[in-house]
Structures are given as structure tokens and as C-alpha cells.
């Protein structure tokens, strides 16, 4: 059919109708590529809807291992009439459109600069299946079979994949294989060779796994020893607690008695969810909640109490596009300032920024140690992209020798800024303690004495400074600094930022890189910021919230921090970063040489 062969380097976008079973078919396609040892990254771009609205699933295949989103669609699988016209327009010149040709495409939809692959999906289904539901479901599997044939997949990969997927329901395997073959056979007999997108088997993934960040957070909470979770359903965080529930069924339930070493309460709202978590932590259980932007707003009051009353808790904030009902199913990193300073009065909260499912697992488990050691809330800042999309990730590992750090082992002399706490029910005559908000003296007694209040507030600052040594360290991308320019990023921007750095390197530009993983900023980050004249701060929000935080907390001048922003609700792309930085570099250089 056309042009230069693209092996393991292209983007497929599926345009589907929400609620038609397309998600599992699309995942099957993606997982097949993963099983062929080729780096692949799917992005589910879905509406706030249960059934009927357009939904897209984008799969990037990258031999080089670039796992960020990439602009440009090499092949569109268009099976949604509602969005068909726009979907056709969005294909890159020279690309392909695979569509359901059961109905004729209107003439004005046609484009001369792309290739059309008509497959009568509905006709094939109607001829093969009598059941309406099967017709709908297998339509998706048929186009996966067609794509696999076009891209010359190793077909055996589906056999093993389906065998794993339907373990225990083996009779479902054959119908799926048949549907795949229906698509593949149609391609074989109707299209000549020449299709230029190909997947070739590689061994680039080692022992990697493919999973989503929310499941990893849920598993991390199990390993971190959480015994209590309270939550209120909100997209995109819901699946954190659902994963925790599933793993709790597996690991925390006595199979004989049904008794559970965990309690999970669906609260009436986010206010109650965090209140319960505070109560449980106060009483010595490791407890957590998960929410998203609007829920975080509701939790503000209680977060202030927890800060002042020095109660540990773990909160997983899966950030989404604000405001409350803006684009709740799209991604963003826009709760940073809110989380950092959540609540009334003087507050600062410890934030952790995972980038991968492995880090979601590690940092969630670690957050329980951290929050108990520091006796303060720890907020894990993930986002919809990391939380709900599948990512290729290093496998989970756990050090069985590691003990839970519950804070009691702290040496008072070493860390006198952190006071001891006691748990109700510990001792009949000693250690009872009245927990309250701000007004208390060194002996935990109620006071409205100004100097005593101020001493307490100052101690909380010392504790904050101490926290710097406890939080996870930033990741540097070079041994020695190579440039006076640096890139600073966090969370899911990692994928595209790394790709952008490679891009600069290939073009003989030098930009150093750092990925921060926490707030308060650690000494590695502080040094990096001191050592670079200009720092590009890459973040996925409109208001440059991380830049603000760097300015407020470290006193860095605004001129040295150049924002690279993305806030359209889709994950940031490398080309976007490269363009913005290149543009800024031109401006900076022009400005500094005049």
C-alpha cells in the first residue's frame, strides 16, 4: 500500500462507543504487543459516561522504549459513527483508517492523503452470530484480528494470552480465537501486502509487568500494613480502594472462618472518609483513603487538624482535570498547591510523586512508615494517567527483612522535634493523652497562651525540616552537570521528559534533568536548582503550581524557572516539551545576548 516500513514504532487509535466491550479487546491488542517483547503504552481517553458516548484508546508502540504519549495517529480504528468525521480528520497524512464498511462512508469524509481499509465488521458479525450481545462484543475482537494480520503479529501470542485470561472459563477461548481469525482471514483475502506498520518480536522488556498505578497503590497499602481504609467513590481514584479490597480478600481473610484482618468502610462523603482514617490512625491502625481533586478539597479541614494534632495518615490523590465536573476522566497534575498547603492556618504537607506502577507500590507502602515516623499526613500525588492506564513497569519486589517503621523506634535525642505519641488502651495509669487542634502546650494540655502556641508552631517547622531527610530522594539523569539549563519534572511527565532529553541529546543540545519525588524538596533537588542558571519546570497544569512551590519554599526567582505546561487533559507529549523548551531557549538566548 505505501511508504517506508515502520517496525515497532507507531501510534494506533481506536475510536469506540463507550460501554460496548471495546476496552477489553483493545487491551488484548496491547497486551499481545507486550507479550511480543515490544515496549507499548496504552492511553484510555474516556468520557464521564457509562454507555453511549465516544471513547478512544490510544496505543503507542516504541522500539526505543518511549512510553509517553505521542502526537500523530498512524492508524485509526474507527468504529464509532458519532465521531467518525473528526476521527478521519485526525489521522496523520500517509496514515490508515480501518473502519466498519457495513455502512457506506459519506463521500465528504474521504481523504486523498490517507489509506482506507474497509472491513464490514457488522456484516461479518451478523453473518456469524445470532445473539445481539455477541455481535456487539465480537465486532471488537474481529478488528483486533484484522489489525494483528495487517501488522504481521505472531498469532500464537493470542493463544497463550487468552488461555491466561480465561483460566477457569476455558470454553470462552475458542470463540475468541475464532473471532480473531475472522478478522485476520478477511484481511488475508481482501488486502494486498504493503501495509507499512509492523510489529516484530523483540526481547526488550525483560521481567517487566504491565499494570495500572491504582492497583499498585492498593497492593502497596496491603504490603504497607494498612488495616483500615475509608473512602468515597470518585473517578479516577475509585480503583485504588477496589484493588485494596480485592487484595484484602486474597491476603487478609481467614479462608476457614471468613474473619478479616482489615476493615474497609465506604463513607458517606470524603469528610467522613478522612475523619475515619484519622480516628483509626490515632488509635494505632495504619489507615488510608484515596480520592481526587474535589474530594481533596472536602478533606481540607480534617487535614489541618491532622497536621496540628500530628496524626499520621496516608492519602492517595489521583489527580484529574479540575474543577469538580470539568473533565473528571482526563488527567492533570493540578492539585499540587492545594495538597501542599491544604487547610486553614499554617500547614505544610509531605507529598510524594510516583511515576510508575512500581513506584506507586513502593511509595504507598513507604508512606505508612513515613507518616508514622513524622506523625503527619503523607499525600501520594498520582494522576489519572498513572492511576487508570496500564503502564509497562518494573516488577514489584519486597524486602522481607524490612520491618514496619512505626515511629516508636525514634531516638528522642536524635529527633527531639518529633514528640512521642501513645495509643489509646496502652497503659492503665500512664500515657493518656488528649488529642486536639492547635492550642496545647508541651504537656499536651489545653492552652491559649501565646508563647506556648508559638513554640508549638515552631516545633512543627523543625519537624518539617527533619522530613527532608526521610522523603525519597530525587533522581538525577547525569553524573556531572553538563549544562546551565536543567529540566525538572515529576510524576507521569517522566515518560515524555525522558524522551525529550534524548531528543535534545540527538540534536547536540545539552539539558540536564532531575525528577523530584517529594515535597519537602530534598537536598539533591535543592543543589540541582542552585547549580543551574535556568530550570525548565515541566508540569501538567495551567498555573505552574510546582514552579510556585519552588519559588515559595526555596526563594528561587521567577526568571530562573521557565514553565513547560500542558493542561488539555491528555498526557503531555515529548514533542510538546521539546517545542516549548526550544522556543524558550531561543527567547532566553536572545534576551541574554542583547
Amino acid at each position, binding site marked *: 500500500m505505501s511508504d517506508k516500513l515502520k517496525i515497532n514504532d507507531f501510534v494506533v487509535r481506536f475510536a469506540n462507543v463507550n460501554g460496548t466491550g471495546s476496552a477489553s479487546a483493545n487491551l488484548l491488542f496491547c497486551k499481545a504487543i*507486550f507479550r511480543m517483547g515490544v515496549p507499548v503504552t496504552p492511553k484510555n481517553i474516556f468520557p464521564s459516561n457509562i454507555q453511549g458516548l465516544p471513547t478512544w484508546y490510544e496505543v503507542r508502540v516504541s522500539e526505543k522504549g518511549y512510553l509517553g504519549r505521542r502526537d500523530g495517529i498512524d492508524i485509526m480504528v474507527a468504529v464509532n459513527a458519532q465521531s467518525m468525521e473528526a476521527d478521519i480528520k485526525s489521522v496523520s497524512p500517509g496514515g490508515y483508517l480501518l473502519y466498519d464498511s457495513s455502512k457506506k462512508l459519506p463521500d465528504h469524509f474521504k481523504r486523498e492523503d490517507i489509506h482506507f481499509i474497509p472491513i464490514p465488521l457488522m456484516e461479518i458479525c451478523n453473518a456469524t452470530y445470532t445473539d445481539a450481545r455477541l455481535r456487539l462484543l465480537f465486532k471488537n475482537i474481529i478488528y483486533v484480528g484484522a489489525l494483528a494480520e495487517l501488522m504481521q503479529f505472531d498469532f500464537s501470542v493470542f493463544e497463550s494470552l487468552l488461555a*491466561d485470561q480465561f483460566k477457569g472459563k476455558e470454553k470462552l477461548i475458542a470463540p475468541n480465537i475464532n473471532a480473531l481469525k475472522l478478522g485476520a482471514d478477511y484481511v488475508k483475502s481482501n488486502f494486498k501486502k504493503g501495509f507499512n506498520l509492523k510489529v516484530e518480536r523483540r526481547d526488550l522488556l525483560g*521481567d*517487566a*509487568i504491565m*499494570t495500572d498505578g491504582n492497583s499498585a497503590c492498593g*497492593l502497596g497499602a*496491603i504490603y504497607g*500494613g*494498612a*488495616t*483500615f481504609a*475509608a473512602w468515597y467513590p470518585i473517578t479516577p481514584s475509585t480503583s485504588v480502594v477496589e484493588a485494596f479490597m480485592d487484595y484484602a480478600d486474597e*491476603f487478609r481473610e*481467614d479462608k476457614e472462618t*471468613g*474473619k*478479616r*484482618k*482489615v*476493615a474497609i*468502610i465506604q*463513607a*458517606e*462523603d470524603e*469528610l*467522613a*472518609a478522612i*475523619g*475515619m*482514617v*484519622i*480516628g*483509626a*490512625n*490515632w*488509635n*494505632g*491502625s495504619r*489507615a488510608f483513603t484515596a480520592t481526587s481533586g474535589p474530594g481533596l478539597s472536602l478533606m481540607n479541614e*480534617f487535614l489541618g*487538624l491532622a497536621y496540628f494534632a500530628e496524626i499520621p495518615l496516608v492519602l492517595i490523590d489521583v489527580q484529574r482535570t479540575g474543577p469538580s465536573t470539568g473533565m473528571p476522566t482526563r488527567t492533570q497534575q493540578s492539585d499540587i498547591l492545594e495538597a501542599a498547603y491544604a487547610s486553614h492556618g499554617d500547614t505544610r504537607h509531605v507529598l510524594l510523586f510516583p511515576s510508575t506502577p512500581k513506584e506507586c507500590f513502593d511509595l504507598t507502602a513507604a508512606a505508612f512508615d513515613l507518616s508514622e515516623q513524622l506523625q503527619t499526613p503523607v499525600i501520594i500525588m498520582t494522576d489519572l494517567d498513572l492511576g487508570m492506564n496500564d503502564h509497562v513497569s518494573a516488577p*514489584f*519486589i*519486597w*524486602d522481607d527483612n524490612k*520491618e*514496619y517503621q512505626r515511629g516508636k523506634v525514634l531516638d528522642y535525642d536524635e529527633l527531639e522535634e518529633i514528640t512521642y505519641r501513645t*495509643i*489509646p*488502651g*496502652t*497503659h*492503665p*495509669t500512664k500515657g*493518656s493523652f*488528649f*488529642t*486536639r487542634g492547635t492550642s496545647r502546650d508541651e504537656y499536651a494540655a*489545653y492552652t491559649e497562651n501565646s508563647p506556648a502556641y508559638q513554640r508549638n508552631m515552631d516545633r512543627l517547622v523543625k519537624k518539617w525540616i527533619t522530613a527532608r531527610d526521610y522523603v525519597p530522594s530525587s533522581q538525577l539523569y547525569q553524573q556531572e552537570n553538563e549544562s546551565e539549563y536543567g529540566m525538572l519534572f515529576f510524576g507521569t511527565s517522566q515518560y515524555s521528559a525522558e524522551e525529550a532529553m534524548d531528543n535534545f541529546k540527538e540534536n547536540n543540545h545539552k539539558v540536564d534533568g532531575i525528577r523530584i519525588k517529594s515535597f519537602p524538596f530534598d537536598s539533591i533537588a535543592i543543589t540541582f536548582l542552585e547549580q543551574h542558571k535556568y530550570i525548565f519546570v515541566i508540569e501538567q497544569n495551567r498555573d505552574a503550581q510546582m514552579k510556585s512551590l519552588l519559588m515559595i519554599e526555596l526563594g528561587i526567582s521567577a526568571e530562573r524557572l521557565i514553565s513547560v505546561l500542558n493542561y488539555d487533559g491528555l498526557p503531555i507529549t515529548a514533542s510538546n516539551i521539546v517545542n516549548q523548551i526550544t522556543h524558550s531557549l531561543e527567547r532566553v538566548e536572545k534576551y541574554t545576548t542583547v
Partner: protein
Amino acid sequence: MTFIKPKFRHPDLPKNKLGYTISYYEGALSTLCAGCGHDSISAAIIQSAFEMNIEPHKLAKLSGIGCSSKTPTYFLGNSHGFNSVHGRMPSVATGANMANKELLYLGVSGDGDTASIGMGQFVHVIRRNLKMIYIVMNNGCYGLTKGQDSATADNGSISKAGIVNQFQAIDLCGLAIELGATFVAQSFSGDKKQLIPLIKAAMAHNGFAFINVISPCVTFNNNKGSTKSYDFVRDHLEATGTFDFVPEMEEITTNYESGEKHAIKLHDGSFLAFNKLDSDWDPLDRFSAMKAVHHAREKNEIITGLLYLNQGAMDLHELVNTCDRPLNSLKKEDLCPGNGALASINAGLR
């Protein structure tokens, strides 16, 4: 200040079975107004805990914000306490209770803290039948902010400033019964004789025990025309029965089964003995309890006593089927599946 506590006590002060005198159950000096009904309730809590032989460290006291929520400082000084956020005590109590099923949880709230800002949490803690004692010190007004009407102020009640309340009152007991609370009582801060056995019975109850205590605000809501003043409440009290709480170990000497006397066996083996005044009303029957509440409202009376009791419902721990050991006592060995389990999880994700 309501009362000054002497530091030295009589050496022959009676001791309970644990060897503690009542002074061991007291708290810090109250900073509420002299004559505040809340201090009487605190005293009743102290007396109840003493008589029930409760280890203070086996009880956790929780509250929200307001005059009533200050009181946990003034009783059970040897218990852990948590003065949380306005209207949110129930959620903190829920989490605390889930963490350790072996403690007794005593929540104190007010009419503003429960019937307004905390209504959502009040309703839901009842739904879950959390095992706790929930006392509302109900004075129909916001004391700390100088006397505004609360949501339990009766329609037609006149405030200190002479303003007639136009809004309908929320009847917390009626609401609690409607929502399925398993122990619902109403009392008056000035009636220690009734209040103490009620608190003791609540301590013995296996589930959510709610006691709405009318507790006049001497400073802002004790004027003529107020339906929460000492005078009005005394004139309109209608006790549903006289009470006695009989611990399981004590022999029941009276034959409560005969005539007007009744005894209800409580969860822990103790008895609640009472003398019914109204023959239509049966505290074990939800409909008759509802009817009694509605009748009293119509007649402008305040019925007091144990209004409703249901001992058959499962508490939240039973509902979510937690293990016998308190969750907060579980160790890494109990909780962490270890690296071995990750091998199969990883394999399932490839």
C-alpha cells in the same frame, strides 16, 4: 466555674472493684458557665464509669466542637481523648473503633454539632450500628458563639433576645429510632437518678447507644419562653419509667416480672429494670416507641427514659467481619504477604 475540686480527698472514699475511687475518674476543672447542665452530665458520666468499674484507659472519649465537645476534658482524665472537628466526631469514632474493638467509645456532641453541621455523620454512624455511646448535650442554642438558635430549638421557643423561632425543630430521638438506632434514650441533665442508669445501660449495649440529654444553657437559653430552660423542662418532663441498672454479678432481689415492673436483660448479662408508666409503650417495639415520641411531641411533653432498645442487630465489626484481635495489634507477620506472593502477582501481570 462550676465546681472546685479539692486536691485532697477523704482517705475512706469508697473504691470500686478495680480499687479506684471516684476521683480517679474525674477530669480537669470545667471552664463552662456556673450552672451549665453539661457539667451535671459530666458528673453522671464520671459516676457511671466508676460504678461500671471501667478501666479509664479502656475507654476513649471523642467529641466535635462546641461547649458540649469541651466536656471530655472535664471527665475521665485518665482516658485518651480526641477533640476533633465540628460535626465530625462520628467519623473519627468510627475509625478509632475499627482500629481497636476492645475499647469503649464515648462520643460527646451538642445540638449544633449533631443536628446541623454533623447531621450527615450522625445519620450514617447510626446506619452502621457502630458500637459507641453517643451523648448529645442538647440546649437548643449555640453557646460559644453567644446564643444563636440551633436546629433543635423548638418552633415557637423564644430566645434571650426575645425572638420567636420560626423553624421546625429536629427531634434527634425520633430521627434515631427512624434510622434504626439500636438504643435510644432521652433524659434531662438535672435528673441524675435517671441519667446514670441510662449511661450505664448504654455502656453495656452492644451497638450504637444514643442518649439525648436536655441540658439547659444557663447563659443564653434559660429565659422565660425558652423551651429548653430549666423551668420549662421541669414542668414538661414525662418520664416513661423509673430505671435501675443491675450489673450481671448482682443478685436481682426484686421480682421485676410481676405487675408493672419489667427487666430487660442486656448484652453483657446485666439487667435494666424499669417501671413503666405508659401501658401503650414498649421499648422493645419500634413502632410503639415512635408513637410515644410523636404523642409526646403533640402534647408538648418531653418524654424521658429508654425509648427504644434493639439487641438483635450486628454491630459494625460483626458486619464487616473483622478478626478477633484488634486491628491495631496486628503485626507485619499478620499483614504483609511477603515477596513470595509478589512472584505470582507479577506473573499475572505479564
